[in-house]
């Protein structure tokens, strides 16, 4: 089966040379790689009902960049990001985070990896309803090594005024910004966002995107953001397109437009 990853180089991490047509982009030795994925395949189920969610994906994410993953529904975006976030393991292939091979980790090591390095933002916020905004953030900062104070993280997403409100007392956009604050408060190396604006209207969505953008810029957090929405791709350094479980193309934005300028 021909695929974008069929001729990929299984070379060492020290000297990765991305073949043409993969997501590694042009060789730029000065940029350091946060993630390297090699030959990722993910098959759900077996036999007749087997679903090939990923069919050989090679991908690199550079430190400090903001990458947007675009693609039609079912193209494997969430599957890919979940694997990078240590939530899931591929059926075949390798994922490296710096020099750590995530695909060789066990459950305990993956938990520690998520705890120390990854910030997640989900489509449905997933806040803890019994904790206030401040406490939802504190939930993470309590267990992090060098966290931002919860108040500061919330200020970063423009919620300094809503510290003591429970999720039930916040709007969807506010809840999502609490989720962003919660994700970045531990100063993670990577921020993974799966359709962070999927449940929000355009105006509220922009507020959330601004928060993400600001974190990426000010804290230098490597950010991968999934979206269906091509308009959002304009705020990215690079736009990675998926289709049918394969990388369909990688585009580098010459100029990033600020999130504030986006609309859909």
């Amino acid at each position: 089966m021909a695929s974008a990853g069929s001729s990929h180089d299984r070379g060492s991490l020290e000297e990765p040379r991305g073949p043409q047509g993969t997501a590694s982009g042009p060789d730029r030795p000065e940029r350091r790689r946060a993630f390297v994925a090699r030959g990722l395949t993910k098959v759900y189920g077996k036999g007749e009902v087997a679903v090939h969610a990923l069919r050989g994906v090679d991908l690199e994410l550079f430190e400090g960049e903001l990458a947007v993953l675009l693609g039609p529904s079912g193209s494997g975006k969430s599957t890919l990001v979940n694997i990078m976030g240590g939530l899931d393991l591929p059926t075949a292939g390798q994922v490296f985070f710096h020099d750590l091979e995530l695909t060789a980790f066990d459950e305990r090591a993956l938990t520690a990896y998520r705890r120390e390095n990854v910030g997640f933002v989900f489509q449905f916020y997933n806040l803890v309803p019994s904790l206030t905004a401040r406490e939802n953030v504190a939930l993470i900062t309590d267990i992090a090594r060098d966290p931002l104070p919860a108040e500061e993280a919330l200020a970063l997403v423009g919620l300094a005024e809503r510290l003591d409100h429970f999720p039930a007392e916040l709007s969807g956009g506010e809840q999502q910004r609490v989720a962003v604050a919660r994700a970045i408060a531990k100063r993670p190396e990577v921020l993974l966002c799966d359709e962070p604006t999927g449940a929000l209207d355009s105006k509220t969505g922009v507020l959330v995107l601004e928060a993400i953008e600001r974190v990426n810029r000010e804290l230098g957090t490597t950010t991968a953001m999934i979206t269906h929405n091509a308009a959002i791709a304009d705020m990215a350094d690079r736009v990675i397109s998926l289709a049918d479980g394969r990388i369909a193309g990688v585009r580098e934005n010459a100029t990033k437009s600020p999130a504030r300028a986006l609309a859909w």
Partner: protein
Amino acid sequence: MRALNRKLLRDLWKIKTQVLAIAVVVGCGVAIIVMALGTMRSLEETRAAYYERYRFADVFAHVKRAPEYLAERVARIPGVKWVESRVVADVTLDVPGMAEPATGRLVSIPEHGRPALNDIKLRRGRALAPDRPDEVLIDETFAEAHGFRPGDHFFAMINDKKRKLRIVGVALSPEYIYSVGPGVLVPDKRRFGVMWISREALASAFDLEGAFNDISLSLLPSASSAEIIERLDDLLDPYGNTGAYDRDDQVSHAYLSGEMDQLVAVATVAPPIFLGVAAFLLHIVITRLVATEREQIGLLKSFGYGNAAVGWHYLKVVLVVAGLGVVLGFAGGAYLGRVMTELYTEFFRFPFLYYRLSPDVFAMAALVTLSAAVLGTINAVWRAVRLPPAEAMVPAPPAVYRRTAIERLEPRGLVGQPTRMVFRHIVRWPLRAAMTTLGISLAVAILVSSLFFYDAIEHLVQVYFHHAQRQDVTVTFTEPSAERIVHEIGRLPGVLAVEPYRAVPVRLRFGHRSERVAITGLEPGAALHRVLDARLRPAAIPPDGIVLSTKLAELLAAAPGDVLTVEVLEGRRPVRQVPVAALVEEYIATPAYMDRHAVNRLMSEGPVLSGAYLQVDAREAEALYRTLKDTPVVAGVGLQTVMLRTFRETMAETMDIMISFYVAFGGLIALGVMYNSARIALSEHGRELATLRVLGFTRFEALYILLGELGVLTLLALPLGCLIGYGLAWFFAWSFDTELFRIPLVIERATYGAAVLVVLVAGAASALIVRRRVDRLNLVAVLKTRE
């Protein structure tokens, strides 16, 4: 199958472990009802049939010697139906192969025809042949204990002469369904036997020809036993009457009634606990089910299912779970009933006793259970019925939490967010938290109050055998004997100390109350048989006045300082006024004590004795027993060590089974409540937990948040449960409190410890089961869906 029913089955299957846990708790309650009431019913019906078929008497009296014609005058008392006069005597037995002496109760039966009352049922062998004075029928328990068969023989000390008795048959009598020897706590099959012998033979052996010393009456249904007893006493009093009494004071009947009362007490206390807990568990499960199926309910209604159909759907869930419990309970109850009945056949001798499964008991148990289940869940079901379809289709608003009052006291940052979550979950559903706590504490309480019986019995043994009655042997004399017998006994082999006593049967009267008891006159400064005060310290018997056991004082409503009328029922039958000098603590029977010399004065008799307490050198015990068996003056020999041993064996036999059932029941309640509580928590917070796991929380941390609530509630429940357990123990002690027997309210710390441990183990088991689910939480799935 209709689609809705298929959904019902799938819903149930999804929560099958919870369903099973609840059904088991329901089953425990049903099983106890079926067992207790079923067994009670069997006993009651069997006893009634037995009494009727074998003409068990209604009123009983013993005299020293009354002429036979008096029986005819008794028969003429209005209301008396039948009269049977007899000769009855307790004798010392020498049984081949047994060193220590046994006591035999010789009961006369007519040489021709059947006795008018208290007939016997011949089980094996043949009836007595006329003119064979050495032939006896023996009771089945005694026969079994010694492996006696018709044709075997043993010896009895009958009126100063050792006589050989030949066994021709084995029999049972309604008078001795429960057969316990004189002065003994529990039946001892080897050392007490009832035997039936021809009236002529017994009368001639005891010089009672043309006379009787025992009389039984049956009454017409309309007759009042109190009146007849009074008139009977009037007739018998000149002949050494010890006071007539009715069935309530007949030992066998009273024990059997006591047992039935206990069954009723168990059936009253235990099932409501189980059914209450089960109703609560059903309530939370159905509430949760309705909450999670909110949108489905809206969908059903918008498709045209009516409110009634939706309500019936959830009611069916309740009925299926409760019904499963009822089925389990029926099976368990039938099994327990059989076990109980088998246990009873050890102590209660019936010619027939079967555990009949009475349909109405089953029907009642099922009805009570299903009603409790429906009542417990009606609120939750009603919520589903009331839910407007439009509202149901919109996802439920997120649960609104508040900061708890306690938290305001807490300096910020001291308590981590997980702990904060735990407390907010508790406060969010305070009633549920309270009920969960109550449920767990009831489990502790059941454990405490069932294990308590061991402590109580141990305490009773310590007090009775090691503090109060420290003699090795109690000897009773056939006749009041002169003091010099003390020296004769002192010279018998192995006797280290002799402490004589004088016992007389009396009727004590105070106000309008009266009790028939024996006054035991103890030697001043007695060291073997002592009496103990309320704090269980040895108390001295004052030279004058009477000392009452607390229960006797309660029955008479008398207190120290009150003056009782003492009607002696022996000898010249003096009637005297005697002040109550003190009260003493006794757990068994309702004794009264006086100074021995004071009893002699009361009787206007010389220094005579009824028996003696002996301290014996164990190495020479056998020689002593041999001598005692052949000593004419000795009517009975009580052996303290044997009594203690049989007491312990009997208690172990009866209590071990019941207590292990109740410990299992308590553990099952704990498991049911805790497992359900953990599962509900998982269902409510599963999404949060998965999110936290995604965010890098470890399994342990997730488990802490999930089970922290249960942990806190358990910690609250443990002391509460110990307290309720104490209350239940008090109730059991109170409801078992009879004239025959009382249970001291003593609970050792180890008992609380064991109860707490069982509950903690149940909690740990629930946590382990739920942990496996936390480990398998699908982290990716929660990110895809909105709650």
